[in-house]
């Protein structure tokens, strides 16, 4: 019994981490129809910068903030100078993917040049580095924190999208970006803000995840398909989809690794196949 509780908790908290990554991916796609292949790179960059900030200043909270902001600025830069020029629409989709792949390789090599090839870990402060014992089962507080951050972000994003004027503009842009432009809303600035926000969330996920799975060369390529699996299952451009997808993928991946270690990636395949057989745009996605 304790195995199931422990693994469920581990899966849920991992899902929380994936939500930070996938919600940004999903938002960016929703507004701009861009699949950001460099999203995993934002994640590792957040973690690496986090490592350095903790080393230099000793403050983990500062690392959380600075790393996320730095990644957000990089995202805005990429969008402003490389992605915006390609225009909108279906014809721009593949070129945008290729450009972000280009950044993926550049960031990959840059992080090896700056931080070396050895695995690193973002040092977690002592007030989060202990375990809560309930009925003989240990719950690492850091994982509780991870889940809590994801929940707070989910609620904040939901409130932001549903209850604010900017959120209404974003939703309008997701539904029909041409019409939204026609109504005189500056979708360019909106796109920039969303790209920055998505990058910020990925960077935040990187610092938090860097305290738990660490960071090493190749992690960018490993985490990206998980984020993709989330949005494939949940549907692109929906917050609800990202939330449900994250939990499903988090649980599937955790249980898969614990129960069938040899087939670990295969356990992601099954839910994806089932969802797509029923609904090609994901559980909550629209065409």
């Amino acid at each position: 019994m304790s195995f199931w509780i422990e693994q469920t908790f581990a899966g849920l908290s991992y899902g929380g981490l994936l939500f930070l990554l996938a919600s940004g991916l999903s938002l960016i796609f929703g507004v701009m129809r861009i699949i950001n292949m460099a999203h995993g790179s934002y994640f590792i960059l957040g973690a690496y910068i986090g490592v350095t900030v903790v080393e230099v200043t000793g403050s983990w909270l500062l690392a959380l903030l600075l790393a996320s902001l730095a990644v957000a600025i990089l995202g805005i830069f990429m969008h402003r100078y490389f992605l915006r020029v390609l225009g909108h629409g279906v014809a721009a989709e593949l070129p945008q993917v290729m450009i972000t792949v280009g950044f993926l390789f550049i960031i990959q090599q840059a992080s090896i040049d700056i931080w070396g090839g050895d695995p690193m870990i973002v040092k977690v402060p002592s007030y989060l580095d202990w375990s809560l014992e309930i009925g003989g089962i240990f719950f690492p507080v850091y994982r509780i924190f991870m889940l809590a951050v994801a929940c707070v972000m989910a609620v904040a994003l939901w409130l932001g999208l549903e209850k604010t004027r900017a959120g209404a503009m974003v939703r309008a842009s997701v539904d029909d970006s041409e019409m939204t432009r026609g109504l005189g809303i500056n979708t360019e600035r909106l796109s920039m803000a969303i790209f920055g926000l998505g990058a910020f969330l990925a960077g935040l996920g990187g610092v938090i995840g860097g305290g738990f799975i660490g960071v090493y060369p190749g992690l960018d390529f490993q985490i990206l398909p998980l984020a993709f699996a989330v949005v494939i299952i949940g549907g692109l451009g929906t917050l609800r989809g990202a939330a449900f997808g994250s939990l499903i993928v988090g649980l599937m991946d955790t249980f898969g690794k614990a129960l069938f270690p040899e087939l670990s990636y295969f356990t992601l395949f099954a839910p994806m196949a089932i969802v797509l057989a029923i609904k090609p745009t994901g559980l909550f996605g629209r065409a």
Partner: protein
Amino acid sequence: MFSGRPRAVFTVLLVLVVLAAVTPFLPEYVCILLIQALIFGILAMGLDLLLGYTGLPSLGQAAYFGVGAYAVAILTTRYEFGFFPTVVLAILLSAAVAAIFGLIAIRAKGVYFLMLTLALAMVVWGLAWRWTSLTDGDNGITGIPRPELGFDLGIYINLFYFILFVFILCLGALYVLVNSPFGRSLVGIREREERMRMLGYNVWLHKYLAFIFSGIFAGIAGVLWAYYKNFVTPDDLFIDVSVEALLMVALGGPATLVGATIGAGVIVFLRNYVSIYYSGWPYILGAMYIFTILYLPEGLMGITRRLRRRAKAEKLDE
């Protein structure tokens, strides 16, 4: 470009003949690089069928490449299969995996297709990496013997001719395929899917077959790769293989077949020569993606096309 015009066919044949004639006089490492370029050329041409002609951007070609390579590795080292049964089984396995993944992927469109093919390919990579009892995990499988075909394939120049022969077969098959009514329908689907459907074409079946064919060519490339390298590791089917195949097609020029091979050649040779002098190859690779998209939207083949267009315009001016 390379679509039914006799002059283009002649040029390609001429280049191949020159290549075959010149290679014995080249240094061995150039010969090895040519082998690599031809193998990736087959992979990229297979992707071109899907991406260039059918308009389906697959980011999962590494999966079928890897299945072909691992099938050769496992069948030859564990079960001591001969050359022909190994090759036939390996290609059939790649086709089977493509047929299963295609059932799922073809349902999706545009970027969903792209993400889905990538995620599915990661499943295959995950198996190669974790299913250690079958694949030996991270260590990979070593000691794949070169096939015995009556001449010594341990010598690189012989291996080169063997692979050039397979390459020409693949190029010929793809050329016939894209110029057949089936190939024409694929282009129609790329341009106007709805209209093709209205005209009564089975769009799904066309896409599905293109997907499987593309997987078969990736499988053939994987088979050759395993025989050439004598060992396979999970790295051989990681995402970067799929992603580089995409660059090869974009760099050479989509929907040209030979463009994909030129793209493969440029990347293989650049990578090797740059790496001698400079350790930051990924920077250059990354910059190539960005540069190709921003400045060479029609790829390298588009340059000659543009030059010819200009020449024609000048002739009209006179």
